[in-house]
């Protein structure tokens, strides 16, 4: 009986207009646009994502294909034409690998690791944070004490130890990063959920016979999401930087699966022999990526900050 429902709603004295999802998104964008630095950073991220995930299409060479590598092409300076008949814009490395292609592929590995580690850590963190905030008591005390202890330890140390235990490989690195980073999400979720839990609408929802999971996911979660989005952007950047650091230290990915970190680590060996392009260019790519994500995250935080709302 949809007509009756509609009639009932019409009878209710006019409530203040509720923002629709589209409106909220438009408002968010118009606030975000205020910083041209952040917009620029967003464009840079878009370009980098395109170049990395489109690496097989845009790069002149497949750096994974050992058959395509020619030892005669090793250590070509940037801008030299190699045996493949094209110009190596950023030079080649010790195995004759085109640096530009290696960077695109390496960036892809870094993005895959950063994004999946960030997403998984977000899920685990939400689960831990919501459980602690909703149930309270001993569960909360135990979970949050573990989280606090982990937060006081630098993520790099935790990830280093975990990777040492788990071994090398993409899946192992992602797992190590999730364990090292979920605590940030758990802390944020817990804090925000504690505040929301005390509000009337949650009280009202709990007094209805709604199942717990519905209250948690339909009512509580959407309201703790904004701060989590901010943490997520920062954590993706830091996951990428962490992975690069681990690979640089020699416990991350091997050069057969080049991430930006392993490329830089490889280039570091030749730092004294004037072959700067082996380490400078992948390092620049890493820096631009991490800084761009952080700049976007900074602006998102400013926009979502309730103190800034008009």
């Amino acid at each position: 009986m949809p007509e009756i429902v509609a009639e009932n709603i019409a009878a209710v004295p006019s409530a203040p207009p509720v923002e629709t999802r589209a409106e909220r998104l438009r408002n968010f964008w118009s606030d975000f646009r205020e910083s041209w630095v952040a917009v620029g950073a967003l464009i840079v991220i878009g370009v980098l994502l395109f170049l990395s995930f489109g690496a097989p299409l845009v790069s002149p060479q497949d750096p994974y294909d050992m058959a395509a590598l020619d030892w005669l092409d090793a250590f070509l300076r940037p801008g030299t034409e190699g045996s493949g008949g094209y110009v190596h814009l950023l030079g080649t490395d010790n195995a004759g690998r085109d640096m530009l292609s290696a960077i695109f592929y390496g960036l892809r590995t870094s993005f895959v690791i950063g994004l999946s580690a960030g997403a998984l850590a977000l899920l685990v963190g939400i689960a831990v944070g919501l459980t602690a905030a909703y149930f309270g008591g001993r569960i909360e005390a135990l979970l949050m004490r573990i989280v606090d202890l982990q937060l006081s330890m630098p993520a790099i140390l935790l990830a280093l130890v975990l990777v040492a235990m788990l071994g090398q490989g993409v899946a192992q690195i992602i797992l190590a990063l999730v364990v090292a980073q979920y605590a940030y999400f758990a802390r944020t979720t817990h804090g925000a959920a504690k505040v929301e839990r005390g509000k009337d609408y949650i009280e009202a929802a709990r007094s209805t016979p709604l199942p717990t999971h519905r209250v948690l996911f339909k009512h509580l979660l959407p309201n703790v999401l904004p701060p989590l989005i901010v943490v997520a952007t920062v954590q993706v950047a830091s996951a990428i930087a962490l992975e690069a650091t681990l690979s640089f230290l020699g416990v991350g990915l091997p050069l057969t699966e080049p991430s930006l970190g392993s490329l830089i680590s490889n280039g570091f060996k030749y730092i004294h022999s004037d072959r700067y392009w082996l380490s400078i260019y992948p390092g620049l790519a890493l820096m631009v990526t991490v800084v761009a994500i952080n700049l976007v995250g900074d602006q998102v935080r400013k926009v979502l900050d309730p103190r800034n709302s008009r």
Partner: protein
Amino acid sequence: MLSYFITRLAQAVVVVFAMSVIVFVGVFAIGNPIDVMIDPGATQAIREKLIAQYGLDQPLVVQYWTFLKNVAQGDLGTSMVYNIPVVDLVFSRFPATLELVLVSVLIAVGVGIPAGLWAGYRPDSIGAKMIMALSVLGFSVPTFWIGMLLIMGFAVELGWLPSGGRGDEATVFGITSSLFTPDGWSHVIMPAINLSLFKMGLMIRLTRAGMVEAMGTDYVKFARAQGLPDRQIVFRHILRNISIPIVTVLGLELGSTLAFAVVTESVFNWPGVGKLIIDSILQLDRPVMVSYLIMVVILFVLINLVVDLVYARLDPRVRLKGGA
């Protein structure tokens, strides 16, 4: 207060024990150190003799129990690579790390706090904007990459500073350190700057935030109304008020500086504890890994405990609700 103290202390002990089990089992799961240690051509008899010598043929529980008994006697085992006691090994490397951390903290404070004060004093000036941009870089750009740029610039291109290692040592008042020689300083300055950047960013942000907040308070307005010069207001009044959180964070950061030293020491080949742990991970030197990790756990649990107790002392609400 006493019951709170006892509860927290008991919790800390439980955490250390739990972590020691996790670390032990985790490190136990990493490869077989014997394969790394001996040459692959060695006979089976030599292999088995070595395995027995290190107790690796015992069940995990027995190995852990032996380890605990030894730790209780101050024996953390013998390094499989250097063949000297782990305690001696760590302590022989510790002064180098301490030097590095000390100089980097000095740089972070010496540059970060004045920069933060300026950024908070004139938040809209170009200088302040540049300082804040720098602090974002210090936060987000990976340490090892900046370290590499420093080496490329100052060691390879300009040739001003050595690219790695620790300089000559000298002994003054019974303390042996490389900070007493010019050569030592030329070696320590680059890694120390590298290690300080993250903390410097933190100091800048913290000082700026405190400064901005203080500038709007009544005591500053009254000091202004009194006709005091800005210099005096900033250094005599504001700095004194915002120094408490700064010192707290600095203390907390000491632990993570030790951890970040792992990266810096590897880049600059600095013979400290951080380099030792990386080498021991790469060489599967189990006793060194286990001991270092447990020491780090104890350090962080201690820092946490001290912070909690100090806060509980200062704020009664914490100890009222925080027994759990």
